[in-house]
């Protein structure tokens, strides 16, 4: 006959002995714990366990129940009780023995807690130090990429064309649609803004110049770079990061190969090729968006629009395009570097992917501001 396992076990506190009765299993754990707490407060401290303990009425016992009992009685007391109970079935004795062994050593790990203000200070310090380490690491990584690039440049046999082309497709070709759409919309918005402001001066015709200037010099490259930072830097980090977590990077190293050459170079070169192309697409599409708004709301005909466009000096186009490779290099480097920093856990992959997007967008905008200053000073 199966014992009735639904009934929660209990402690029967008699004057001469303490009886442990019934089912001591994990399904009853919360209620058993409550009973033990009640027993402890009732018995008070000191003299509660000087009676003999009777385990013979236990019906079912599992590791959770055994852990509770041992926690209540203490390891030595439990061992002594078992020694005086020859009627204990051997299987149950073995379980209790195993649990005693497991609970002999202290279970609580040592933790060193520090006060909150101190922890805050420590955290701030760590953040600041992290930031510097980060920049240091990025510089070092850029050096690694450049040296790998130089050593491979003269050996066409080691160019990884397949990987490069695959990356160009993923980072560039597949992104053309979204880049074109986004810049088209922003182009239209800039034209609207320009028209609204310039109308007051009766100078709506300069909307054309506004759109052309802004897209050739800034928006084309900036929008494409930010999109790529969100789309591609995150992909680089996730790809390399999960390889790192799976020890694939270590395997590459152990095979005597260079992960920078194998994984980073194709990616960075691909993004170096694609960002200028995407920038060009972005410029065209933004100007088209502007032209459409001019045509529909400002009555500037397409012919007129493009005639004015011809007067805009071509060096603005060069200035805009010249920033693309710089942005591309940093986006690629940051994306790959964050991937290498991943440490095993799924959470770490997520953290570093976020960090790579934030960092690369930050870097793109910072570089753009610096470039704007530089070009202004140079009068270009």
């Amino acid at each position, binding site marked *: 006959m199966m014992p009735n396992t639904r009934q929660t076990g209990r402690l029967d506190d008699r004057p001469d002995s303490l009886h442990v009765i019934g089912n001591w*299993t*994990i*399904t009853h*754990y*919360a209620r058993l*714990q409550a009973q033990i707490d009640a027993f402890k407060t009732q018995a008070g401290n000191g003299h509660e366990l000087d009676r003999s303990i009777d385990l013979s009425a236990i019906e079912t*016992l*599992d*590791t*959770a129940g055994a*852990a509770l009992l041992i*926690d209540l009685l203490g390891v030595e007391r439990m061992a002594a009780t078992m020694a005086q109970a020859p009627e204990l079935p*051997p*299987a*149950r004795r*073995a*379980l209790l*023995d*195993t*649990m005693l062994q*497991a*609970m002999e*050593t*202290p*279970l*609580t*790990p*040592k*933790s060193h807690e520090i006060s909150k203000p101190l922890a805050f200070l420590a955290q701030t310090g760590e953040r600041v130090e992290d930031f510097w380490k980060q920049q240091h690491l990025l510089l070092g990584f850029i050096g690694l990429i450049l040296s790998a690039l130089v050593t491979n440049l003269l050996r066409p046999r080691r160019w990884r064309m397949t990987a490069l082309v695959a990356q160009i497709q993923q980072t560039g070709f597949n992104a053309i649609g979204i880049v074109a759409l986004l810049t088209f919309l922003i182009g239209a918005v800039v034209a609207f803004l320009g028209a609204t402001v310039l109308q007051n001066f009766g100078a709506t015709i300069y909307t054309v110049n506004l759109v052309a200037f802004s897209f050739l010099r800034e928006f084309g490259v900036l929008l494409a770079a930010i999109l790529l930072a969100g789309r591609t830097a995150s992909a680089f980090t996730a790809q390399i990061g999960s390889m790192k*977590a799976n020890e694939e990077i270590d395997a590459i190293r152990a095979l005597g190969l260079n992960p920078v050459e194998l994984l980073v170079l194709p990616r960075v070169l691909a993004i170096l090729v694609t960002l200028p192309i995407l920038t060009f697409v972005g410029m065209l599409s933004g100007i088209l968006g502007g032209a459409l708004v001019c045509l529909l709301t400002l009555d500037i005909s397409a012919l007129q629009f493009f005639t004015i466009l011809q007067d805009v000096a071509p060096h603005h186009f060069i200035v805009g395009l010249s920033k693309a490779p710089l942005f591309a290099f940093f986006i690629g480097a940051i994306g790959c570097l964050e991937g290498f920093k991943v*440490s*095993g*856990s*799924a*959470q*770490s992959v997520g953290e570093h992917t976020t960090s790579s997007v934030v960092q690369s967008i930050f870097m793109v905008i910072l570089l753009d501001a610096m470039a704007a200053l530089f070009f202004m000073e140079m009068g270009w």
Partner: protein
Amino acid sequence: MVSLREDTPRGDDHVLIRIRDLCNRFGEHVVHEHLDLDVYRGEILGIVGGSGSGKSVLLRSIVGLLRPSAGSIDVFGEDLQALSTRRRSLLERRFGVLFQRGALFSSLNLQENVAFPVLEHLGLARAEAEFLARVKLSLVGLPANAALQYPSELSGGMIKRAALARALALDPEVLFLDEPTAGLDPIGAAAFDQLLLTLRDALGLSVFLVTHDLDTLYSTCDRVAVLSQRRVLAADRLEVVEKVDDPWVRDYFNGPRGRAARRHINSSKVD
């Protein structure tokens, strides 16, 4: 040590898992075809077979991670696939599964990993669940300070142990172990075998043990099922299975490692 080895029950009441006519295929690739197998209550059943013979696929089908192409699998007398989500979750709570590579949650430390099913299913307070978790971690032979470490900081053997602790967290009735001793040092593997026997005897656990480890097979298993040619070639006591007339079985049990393991067991029985 009390062993059920000599009087393993064979009656219908004692069947815990009944697999009939199981077929599993992935596209063209047929893994199981008309596979029958019973797992009895309170036994340790070892599953052996060459690489790619579908041991892990069988395990995954039983615990319900993989819907079989055809056939039926009854666990505790009920067909998992036919149950409602709620009933199924209640049933699955009585399983403990140890995956081949541990499958610990990488964003939780060991203590949280083990406490997780306890918290989710039993609604204990966090302190109680963590106490239980630490007991389980110690039970599988991990030191106390490992409780706060994350899986990525641990060696493969420690991950195995922690994964076993998680599989034991709910004090399950059936344990499914996928190569539990692979990656453990011999001392750890022997301790694991002993722990398995103790738990089986004390809790009446049934164990479904996929393994390549001949020592584990000889020292713990009541019965052994050989998977070969898409079905169960034999499922019986070791002495019987050893003598099955099949090239793979012969090579497996009578290879140098098989002989060594058997010699070791026989000599320890004499002692």
